[in-house]
């Protein structure tokens, strides 16, 4: 009280103004970031905006989309690379490979390659990298995703030769190894690394957690130096903001855009390897009746969804893998939209005592793909028209994943789960093992006979393999019908006119910076 009475209003006002002015100066004088726009707008710097920050840059987790898009073939490289256009395997850090015994493959490593820290790469590093991936203690994502935790023995034959022995003959082992990024033998084998060392054209410059990751050209790179000496990744959750950053010249590339995000002429649509589908939990009534599952399949208006909701970016799907994947069956046609037939199937099931009125949960993941909410609502509307009682539940990634991967939520009841599957590896086996085998990590249903058919097909090679895998895919709707396929998706990438880059089906998982060059008009 005394304090107040001692101060005059005038002094108080001028004091407040002085404090405010000082604070304003302090605020305007200090930036919350450690660089400015000008610094990153150098012509030799690629500015890329992603939907989310990579959770890790650990190379053995590079099968995670958000990690792989930064790490793979930019910071680290594998022994063998898969050409995303042709599907062929191409030499990278291995110059050649051959199957020397039914369950033994031998890889010859290239000479003259150095890691970004100056250490020389040889077969010892290759063996270390493969073993590190199989080291269960660090829980590599690649191990489960690509190798299915199978037992593998790795030996160094000589400084340029590494041998991989598997329990059973593995006809696609080279393809699997294309997912293992090579790291120096000095890398921690018992803990994941935050900033990896690799042989790729770039190395980590800095990672300002929560804000951005900067890469710089690797001075020890064995190939031709990339045109851009630096790359800066930022992330913005909103697709419209990512698109606006490119149109406003704040970024050169923006990924994972929807058709409505406003990239305009700078947007490039491309076929990615993703396919959307409804997974039907056939272990619970009424979904345990194949007629009900068939009816659900018939009540999805795929053409309508693709035309109206995806604005034409996509194609109605008849299987879970897309064109270009070994095993893709080009003879299959999408299930037609026929509500009348669907209703008839439901009525038949009802007449046989199937509890078709039971509430079915339709679970989707918020933001999984553009217009997912509308897609799910459209499906629910159709299902209600054929007499099913469907309740929509939208969840975040972690919530939805509890329903997508084993161990599943116990007692969850009948569930229709919206999934989006991307086969990065280029062979249907990776899809079948996860999504179709009755005990697959992301599969809720199957039969012993169908499992046998899958395993038999996966043991084959060449044309026989293609034909057998294609037949497995063709048999799924008649023998199992765990899935109602919706669409093979297309993605939109916004690209500045200053950059030349042709996105491909692997771009979402592996965006090779060295393929990006200055646009011709910029060089003139």
């Amino acid at each position: 009280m005394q304090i107040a009475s001692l101060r005059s209003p005038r002094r108080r006002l001028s004091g407040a103004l002085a404090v405010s002015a000082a604070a304003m100066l302090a605020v305007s004088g200090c930036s919350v970031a450690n660089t400015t726009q000008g610094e990153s707008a150098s012509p030799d710097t690629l500015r890329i905006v992603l939907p989310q920050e990579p959770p890790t840059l650990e190379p053995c987790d590079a099968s995670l989309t958000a990690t792989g898009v930064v790490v793979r073939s930019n910071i680290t490289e594998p022994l063998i690379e898969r050409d995303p256009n042709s599907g062929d395997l191409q030499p990278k850090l291995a110059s050649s490979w051959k199957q020397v015994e039914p369950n033994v493959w031998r890889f010859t490593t290239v000479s003259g390659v150095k890691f970004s820290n100056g250490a020389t790469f040889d077969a010892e590093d290759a063996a270390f990298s493969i073993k590190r991936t199989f080291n269960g203690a660090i829980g590599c994502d690649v191990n489960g995703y690509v190798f299915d935790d199978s037992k593998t023995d790795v030996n160094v034959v000589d400084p340029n030769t590494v041998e991989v022995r598997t329990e059973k003959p593995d006809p696609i082992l080279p393809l699997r190894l294309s997912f293992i990024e090579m790291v120096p033998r000095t890398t921690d084998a018992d803990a994941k690394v935050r900033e990896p060392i690799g042989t790729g054209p770039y190395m980590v410059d800095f990672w300002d957690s929560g804000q951005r990751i900067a890469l710089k050209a690797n001075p020890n790179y064995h190939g031709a130096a990339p045109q851009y000496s630096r790359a800066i990744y930022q992330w913005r959750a909103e697709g419209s903001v990512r698109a606006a950053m490119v149109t406003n010249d704040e970024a050169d590339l923006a990924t994972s855009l929807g058709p409505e995000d406003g990239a305009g002429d700078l947007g490039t649509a491309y076929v990615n390897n993703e396919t959307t589908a409804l997974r039907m939990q056939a272990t619970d009534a009424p979904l345990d009746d194949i007629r009900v599952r068939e009816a659900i399949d018939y009540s999805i208006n795929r053409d309508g969804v693709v035309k109206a909701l995806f604005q034409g970016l996509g194609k109605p799907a008849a299987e879970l893998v897309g064109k270009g994947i070994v095993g893709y069956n080009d003879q299959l046609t999408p299930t037609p939209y026929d509500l009348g037939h669907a209703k008839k199937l439901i009525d038949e099931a009802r007449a046989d005592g199937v509890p078709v009125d039971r509430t079915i949960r339709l679970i989707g993941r918020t933001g999984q793909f553009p217009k997912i909410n509308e897609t799910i609502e459209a499906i629910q509307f159709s299902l209600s028209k054929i007499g099913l009682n469907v309740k929509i539940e939208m969840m975040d990634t972690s919530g939805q994943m509890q329903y997508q991967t084993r161990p599943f939520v116990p007692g969850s009841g009948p569930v229709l789960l919206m999934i989006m599957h991307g086969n990065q590896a280029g062979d249907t086996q990776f899809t079948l093992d996860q999504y179709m085998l009755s005990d697959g990590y992301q599969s809720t249903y199957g039969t012993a006979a169908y499992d046998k058919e899958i395993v038999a097909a996966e043991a084959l090679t060449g044309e026989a393999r293609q034909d057998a895998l294609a037949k497995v895919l063709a048999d799924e709707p008649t023998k199992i019908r765990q899935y109602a396929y919706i669409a093979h998706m297309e993605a939109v990438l916004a690209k500045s006119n200053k950059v030349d880059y042709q996105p491909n089906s692997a771009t979402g998982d592996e965006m090779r910076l060295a393929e990006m060059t200055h646009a011709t008009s910029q060089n003139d």
Partner: protein
Amino acid sequence: MFTFLRRRMYTSLIPLIIVLFGVFFMARLTGDPTNLYLPVSATPDQRAEFAAAHGLDKPIWQQMFDYFSGVIHLDFGESLKTGQEAAGMALKAFPATLQLAFVTLLLSIIGSVIIGCWAAYRPNSLADRFSSLLSMTAASVPDFWFAITGIWVFAVVLGWLPTSGTGGVLAWVLPIATLMIRPLGVLTQVVRGAMVSALSAPYVKVARSKGAGDLRVVSHHALRNAAAPALTVAGDLAVGLINGAVVVEAIFGWPGIGKLMIDSILQRDFAVLQAAVLLTAVSIFILNIVIDAGLALLDPRVRDKATV
């Protein structure tokens, strides 16, 4: 005065403690972080090992005890995602939010005083209508919509401002403008209402009869009396700004505490989420005390009532 402040501190501590308990339990309701940090193929042993390494295998009451005993020793745990100290991450992000909130509030106060006084002094004037428009906009337009529209108009169409980020003064404009809509609208209405009452009060008429000019009447007589309700509301708005910058920070990529909270929730990074919420709650606690002290200084009736 000190009795008043002491009493306010005691009463403010209760919500602070409730928040701490609440965030501890609610963070765990988001699910098991094992599903995020281990591959889909992780074995039960690996999952058990991960849980044990991060204390997630203990009963919930023991986890809570560990957390609170850690807080007492200023140990807030480590981030599951980065391995960094959670407190350090929160403290690093907080200044960005404070800067944003401070500038927003300051500009809102200045703007609302100018518009509110003008509107009160000249009813039905342009300023009066503008204040009504602001108020309606604040009440009806979500931050999200305003942010996206602002980006589209000022960054994409006009090219005047950057879409997001933190580099340079221009990057501040859209986040601040988005955040300002609500406090400016609310404060303008409060200032206008208080000024209308104050301008019709007898002491203002006395001042006028003594020959005081319009500016002096407004600034030295009416505004002083209108300041208390405006300050109360501004205090609440400041709390809301610190607490509610989440959407704006997420859209504009502003590396503040709100964005950190969102990221922590999505990553189930319990330690970081708890540290971020604790820091925010403590700041709001201090801010409330400061506001109460300011009110008590401005209006003796407040502290007299509180100390009776």
